[in-house]
């Protein structure tokens, strides 16, 4: 019996579109548009100016503060301008750096290259390189890796888990990565373990990827790394649910994984860390799944950061019918986009296209109190009650019901037979609670 957590849902996996398509390289576009904010935290501040020549992998934005990450140019070329462009995560117009590609792909040498001696690196240097290489979680949330690698003093991390669950339907980027770069992933994991001096290392993979489990088990022999097959269920790849499934530990309410001695990182980030340390390569490209029922040739593409979605969709053969919905990320937690001119960032794991039929929203019916949402909630909340509190502005009560612990996985809204807007009302309640907390804090400081 594979490890798992209580609750969860089983959306159609739909991985067959792209899971057998090897990673293809998408040629760099003529112009890359690189967002200065590609991570959680303060946006980077630009350190290049219009007209400057930049090299591939050159730092063009410096991290502002600790919870922030630098950004690097993904091509060699000239800075055309720094201007506002629509951002795929916030939906707002955010500053981007536009770089005209000169197709020389001249590499900048800014990071120390450890090559074959990667194992001899000093743990402190690992964190430093993670920061300089602009690493951010490649699973989707894009939390700066160096921040995660520096737990507060007194917090001992004994378990490092790599997340290869990829529980979102359609997405296969991590799956292909595990099949094609198993050694890099394992080395990246060893490096993370070294940086945190953790004894226990593991890689978690959902059971619907038996080939990845097999290949990683083979390569991980004699390294002390354990491979954990997980039950196929959404949201198995959420870090708190994964920690519970593997170790049986629960992250306390309002806490982070290090509060229970664990650390979870996406497999892609582990490979990027190894690339940065062994090959001196900052994070300027990533693997993106381009898939969906109406796409001609669903594929897994290795793309430069700053390539527009349009170019990726074109490479994948384009849509066969009218597009009803364009989603950045997976269909459960991803963000629907209003335009295909947005660009790939560090957190873009997939681009999905759906037809008009799939984009229809069904009418909202009254709650029949079936408690299906309560059964499936992976955090053991009562989604229907919290959503009601949101709808009727009972913010204090929503807080008492634990609204802030909601991980916004959307399982409740997925399972609801009445198609109630559960997640949206919970998100409203959460934002109001956070506003209230901020207000109180402000009052206190005055």
């Amino acid at each position, binding site marked *: 019996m594979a490890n798992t957590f209580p609750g969860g849902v089983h959306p159609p996996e739909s991985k067959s579109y792209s899971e057998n398509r090897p990673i293809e390289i998408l040629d760099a576009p003529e112009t890359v548009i690189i967002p200065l904010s590609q991570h959680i935290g303060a946006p980077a501040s630009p350190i290049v100016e219009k007209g400057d020549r930049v090299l591939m992998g050159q730092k063009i934005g410096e991290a502002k503060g600790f919870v922030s990450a630098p950004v690097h140019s993904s091509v060699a070329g000239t800075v055309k301008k720094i201007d*506002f462009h629509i951002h795929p995560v*916030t*939906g*707002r*117009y955010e500053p981007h750096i536009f770089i005209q590609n000169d197709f020389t792909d001249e590499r900048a040498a800014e990071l120390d290259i450890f090559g074959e001696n990667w194992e001899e690196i000093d743990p402190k240097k690992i964190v430093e390189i993670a920061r300089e290489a602009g690493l951010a979680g490649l699973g989707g949330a894009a939390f700066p890796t160096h921040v995660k690698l520096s737990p507060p003093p007194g917090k001992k991390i004994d378990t490092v888990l790599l997340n290869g669950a990829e529980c979102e339907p359609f997405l296969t980027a991590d799956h292909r990565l595990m099949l094609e770069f198993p050694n890099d992933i394992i080395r990246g994991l060893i490096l993370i373990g070294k940086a945190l001096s953790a004894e226990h290392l593991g890689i978690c993979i959902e059971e619907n990827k038996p080939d990845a489990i097999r290949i990683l088990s083979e390569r991980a022999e004699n390294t002390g790394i354990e491979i954990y097959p997980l039950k196929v269920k959404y949201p198995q790849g959420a870090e708190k649910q994964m920690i519970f499934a593997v170790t049986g530990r629960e992250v306390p309410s309002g806490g982070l994984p290090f509060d229970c001695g664990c650390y979870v990182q996406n497999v892609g980030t582990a490979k990027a860390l190894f690339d940065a340390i062994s090959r001196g390569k900052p994070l300027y490209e990533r693997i993106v799944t381009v898939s969906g029922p109406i796409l001609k040739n669903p594929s897994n593409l290795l793309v430069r950061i700053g390539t527009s979605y349009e170019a990726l969709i074109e490479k994948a053969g384009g849509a066969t019918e009218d597009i009803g919905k364009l989603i950045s990320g997976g269909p459960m937690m991803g*963000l*629907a*986009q*209003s*335009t295909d001119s947005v660009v790939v960032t560090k957190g873009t794991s997939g681009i999905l296209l759906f037809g008009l039929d799939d984009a229809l*929203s069904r009418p909202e019916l009254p709650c029949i109190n079936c408690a299906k949402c309560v059964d499936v909630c992976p955090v053991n909340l009562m989604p229907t009650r919290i959503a009601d509190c949101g*709808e009727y502005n009972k913010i204090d009560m929503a807080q008492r019901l634990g609204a802030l612990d909601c991980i916004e996985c959307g399982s409740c809204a997925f399972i609801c037979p009445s198609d109630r*807007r559960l997640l*949206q*009302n919970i*998100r*409203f309640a959460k*934002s*109001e609670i956070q506003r209230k907390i901020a207000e109180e804090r402000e009052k206190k400081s005055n």
Partner: protein
Amino acid sequence: MDLVFLGSIIELGVLALCFGAFLGFAAKKFHVEVDPRVEQIDEILPGANCGACGFPGCAGFAQAVVDGDAPVNGCIPGGDSVTEAIASILGKSAEVSTPMIAALKCRGGKERAHDAFVYEGVENCISAALIMDGPKACPNACIGLGSCIEACAFDAISMDDNDLPVIDREKCTGCGACVVICPKDVLEMMPADSDVWIACNNVYSGKLVKSVCETGCIGCRLCVRECPKDAITFENNLAHIDYEKCTNCQICVVVCPTGTIHTKRTGEILNDAPKIRAAIEKKKAREKEKREKLKAQNPNVK
């Protein structure tokens, strides 16, 4: 009379006497001194419990103002009359403040500013703004789902045919509840006796604004140049009116090429237009004269 009936009257009467005596005793014994001024002030307050003062309702404010925790002019909806009444009760002097009202810094209703996507979720601006910053293509536009209408305790906001909230200048008391609730910060307080305001909230370049809205501020700075009192400044891609200097002459309303500057005198403005144009011409002539004079004095200066 029926004996049972009489018996119950006596029984209840005795009970009532006992309870009455107990209540009377308790009232004396556990008497709490209430400052009579609190009650007096509570009576003159508007009683809408809007919370604009920062205290829990009007009674909370009355207590706070007597305790000295709240300023005498803390009740914004009450305005000067209430402030003066409170001041006279407390024997303090009150500074008369300018009454403020809310103004909508956007004219991009559904006809003038298009949507970027179809929004089918919960009918509430805050929820809508959580999804890709709201359905409007303009990143700063009014979403138009009416969270401000719900927030208004004085029923001063209504929705027009263009899905934009309209503020009733008579009913608005300036409590600012709508300004706080708006997720797009598209509502602003302005002096109630001023007529004009910049009905745009963007912070982006004119090119971007033009692509998402027909009536947004494109940053031409015509209003800045034509204002006879130099009351309009331009910063962060948007014009701002300094109400200390503004005389409600409406020149800016007429010169604005995109109709961004809004006036409460919509009907009158057309009649005024020739007058305003004449004023602009006059100002131009005056400036030209000034320039020529300068030129005559210093022929070397261009």
